[in-house]
């Protein structure tokens, strides 16, 4: 690209992927103690905004990343599925913490053994709770996935 001409060539897929991966609007579905770590990631110290995912939207219709943060039990499972169904495509899901990922140590009568039994998940973040660095790494993994996937044009 020269200073005079001012254009560059790329593939549409790659351009869309590049745009989408840095404009993530997240919906935090926070149910338990992992929420504290979510707050820490999203606020000034770890500042998720540096990764282009700074703006939580509290409406599923305006968001494209569902962050499932904390323990999900059978009582709230229909709500989680409804929230996910309400999100417009393209949409992604991060399972935040070991409870959301596999039920964690709550292997009992109440807890869903991993939210992938309710909705499809793109990135799993382990840890109880995960450190903010782990969350950011998970986010970067998701961004890699977004950038390299086939971009559907809706």
């Amino acid at each position: 690209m020269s200073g005079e001409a001012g254009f560059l060539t790329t593939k549409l897929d790659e351009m869309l992927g590049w745009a989408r991966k840095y404009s993530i609007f997240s919906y935090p579905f926070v149910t338990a103690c992992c929420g504290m770590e979510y707050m820490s990631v999203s606020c000034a110290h770890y500042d998720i905004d540096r990764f282009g995912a700074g703006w939580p939207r509290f409406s599923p219709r305006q968001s494209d990343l569902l962050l499932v943060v904390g323990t999900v039990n059978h009582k709230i499972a229909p709500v989680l599925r409804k929230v996910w169904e309400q999100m417009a495509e393209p949409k992604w899901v991060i399972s935040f913490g070991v409870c959301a990922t596999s039920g964690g140590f709550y292997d009992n009568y109440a807890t869903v053994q991993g939210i992938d039994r309710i909705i499809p998940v793109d990135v799993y973040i382990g840890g109880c709770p995960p450190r903010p660095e782990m969350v950011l790494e998970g986010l970067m993994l998701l961004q890699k996935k977004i950038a390299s996937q086939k971009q559907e044009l809706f």
Partner: protein
Amino acid sequence: MAVESALIKFVKEKFPNFVISTHSFRNDDTIVIRKEGLKQVMTFLKTDKNTLFNMLVDITAVDNLGSEPRFEVIYHILSLTLKLRLRIKVPVEEMEAEVDSITSIWPGANWFEREVFDMFGIIFKNHPDLKRILMYDEFEGHPLRKDFPLKKQFPRIQMREVKTKY
């Protein structure tokens, strides 16, 4: 067993027919009473000027599966005026798992009794609205009973198939 506290002595003298046993350890007093006398004893403890237990702190239960009687309903009460604490236990048979509701004495008992009903299946007679409080309506059984199958779940929606590799 430590010396009987004045409070235990007082209640014992007042209700010799209802008190089954007592226990006292470092000012931590417990009185086990017959369930027939529950309402009478509780009303007395709340209103008598020597006890004035004006606050109900908690109601819970224990499932002693295998021993008779199977359940114990446990009440923790507190006198804010006289700074007294007391634990009342009521043995409950499995076959007749019901006790009188004490919502008419302490209205705060309402949700506590619903929780005990939800988790242990103990019926509280004359409760104004005895239904589940934590579990959902589709849930069958009472999860804190010791004979509730471990890991038994009642999903409310169709669960997805998940491939597991381990």
